[in-house]
């Protein structure tokens, strides 16, 4: 009654008691240009991977006749042969050990170092943080020769420890740079409340810091894992015994050994990508969460 009186003349009044369900969630198509760019980028990213995976299902003659064709007929022997070969599984095991070892080392050392830098007051704290940050500007390529000499002096050539240790060292800068702001964001009151509740500084670290920084820890762990999994140059210098080869080395070795058998090389390559791919897609959301997330009370 009173509501309709305030409406401008000529407008119909809404029928009381009825609700029009507006489909506000209706899908909105973007501009065609957006889709074009997106499709081009996706094609550029997926194309080579798809070529490698599909190539593994073809024979060498198929590849020679029509390099860009689809498998016809589909051949599975390439994959089964690679899967039954000993060198593939050796390389796979070595890669897994190297990547997991690196991840554990990076996470444990990274969290501890970041905690101290983020929450303790001591002289030289800023210098130490900058030192770690400076590590980011120090590519492994530059350091590879002295690094090799050092590893050799330590007697770690041809061992997985010889690649795990440098990989941890090179992953620490990123880890610390991601984790320090994360740990700094834990409110001071939380630490005070915990100390009144009876937690020691170490107790606070275990019971509060670790659980609260878990998203950041997972992110840095995944980054370290993938970097170690894909690492090529360091293993190339350190490892020369095929029994210690990691997957990238194994792929290269296999490729030079079976250079005529392109299809098999493609099968080997695509199989070696799978674990990292699975790992990444499983934790992809967590990675982003760890980069953006801070602790909210």
């Amino acid at each position: 009654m009173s509501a309709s009186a305030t409406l401008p003349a000529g407008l119909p009044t809404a029928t009381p008691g009825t609700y029009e369900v507006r489909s506000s969630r209706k899908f909105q198509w973007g501009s065609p240009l957006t889709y074009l760019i997106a499709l081009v980028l996706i094609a550029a990213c997926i194309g080579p991977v798809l070529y490698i995976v599909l190539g593994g299902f073809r024979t060498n003659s198929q590849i020679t006749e029509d390099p860009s064709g689809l498998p016809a007929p589909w051949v599975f022997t390439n994959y089964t042969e690679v899967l039954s070969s000993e060198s593939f599984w050796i390389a796979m095991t070595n890669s897994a050990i190297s990547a997991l070892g690196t991840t554990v080392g990076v996470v444990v050392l990274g969290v501890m170092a970041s905690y101290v830098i983020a929450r303790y007051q001591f002289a030289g704290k800023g210098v130490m943080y900058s030192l770690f940050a400076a590590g980011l500007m120090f590519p492994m390529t530059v350091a590879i020769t002295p690094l090799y000499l050092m590893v050799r002096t330590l007697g770690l050539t041809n061992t997985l420890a010889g690649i795990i240790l440098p990989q941890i060292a090179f992953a620490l800068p990123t880890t610390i740079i991601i984790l320090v702001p994360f740990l700094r964001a834990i409110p001071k009151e939380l630490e005070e409340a915990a100390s009144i509740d009876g937690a020691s500084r170490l107790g606070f670290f275990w019971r509060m810091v670790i659980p609260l920084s878990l998203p950041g820890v997972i992110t840095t762990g995944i980054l370290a894992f993938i970097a170690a999994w894909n690492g090529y140059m360091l293993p190339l210098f350190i490892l020369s015994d095929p029994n210690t080869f990691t997957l990238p080395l194994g792929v290269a070795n296999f490729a030079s050994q079976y250079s005529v058998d392109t299809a098999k090389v493609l099968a080997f390559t695509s199989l070696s990508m799978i674990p990292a791919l699975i790992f990444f897609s499983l934790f992809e959301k967590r990675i982003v969460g760890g980069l953006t997330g801070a602790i909210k009370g």
Partner: protein
Amino acid sequence: MATVTFDHATRVYPGTERPAVDQLNLHIEDGEFLVLVGPSGCGKSTSLRMLAGLEDVNGGRILIGDRDVTDVQPKDRDIAMVFQNYALYPHMSVADNMGFALKIAGTPKAEIRQRVEEAAKILDLTEYLDRKPKALSGGQRQRVAMGRAIVRQPQVFLMDEPLSNLDAKLRVQTRTQIASLQRRLGVTTVYVTHDQTEALTMGDRIAVLKGGVLQQVGTPREMYDAPANVFVAGFIGSPAMNIGTFDVKEGAALVGNAQIPLERSMVAGLTDADAGKVTVGFRPESLDVVPSGTPGSFQVQVNIVEELGSDAYVYGSLQSDLGTGELSAGDSDQVIVRINPRDVPMKGDIINVAIKAGHEHVFSASSGNRLG
């Protein structure tokens, strides 16, 4: 249960010269609710944090009961603290938050559960025990913070502005709840706030601090009726007390056109430093509207009238033929008069008011201390 004693407790922050808390002497009785109040930066939170063990004590000592805790770790002081932002552990459920201290102390699980449930019942939190703090409203979080303190059954509760993150209505409601809860549990409580209304309504006694120095301790009534100095007079009470400095002539203060007679002892208390002036304060409700020409009355020009239903306040300026003295209440530069809400003057009117006999507060103009 225990008493708390600050004995010349002093805190100097590194890099500063003036102590944040200067020679604080304060004795809090067993089971008492003491409110530390003052403007921001007055050292009230620092005092509390010294008692909690979160700040070093640079001089003097602090006792809980008969035990000197000056150098004791926070966890060994048998205290519980409620923080302004509650400091709930975000990754733990409400029950785990409340039982955390007991868990660290190694209390058996069944007992933790039982004590947490008891506290939750008192605070009406039973149905939220399995939630994370994130999924609670502000008021519920505040209650969890209280619950965390209660579960420990400490000797002393410390509360650092626990209500300042709540909205006005909830604050008033929770204020009463906390006060009645404290009476029920009978635990000695030190409560920090900047809100003098909170202080007056909750505390058994109030301690007013300013610039790290204790100004006055007393019951709310004492603080209101007999403020020890100009600062306390202006700080306690809402609306604030009208305070002004006036000339003294023939044993009376000249307020506007009125002469407020002073007691002989007050006049005798004046020193050369006062230069023949005296500071007089009177609360808005100590004024009566009187017919013009009444002896001892002065005139106030009405600038604004605030009607609160039960009361009405006139904000105005002092009219004076002599043009001497400044009279104002709190931070405003106006005189506040409480008037009958059924008989409200118009803006611009001039009303005559007189101070009720014996309701004026007289302070030394130079030192600010109460005279007589």
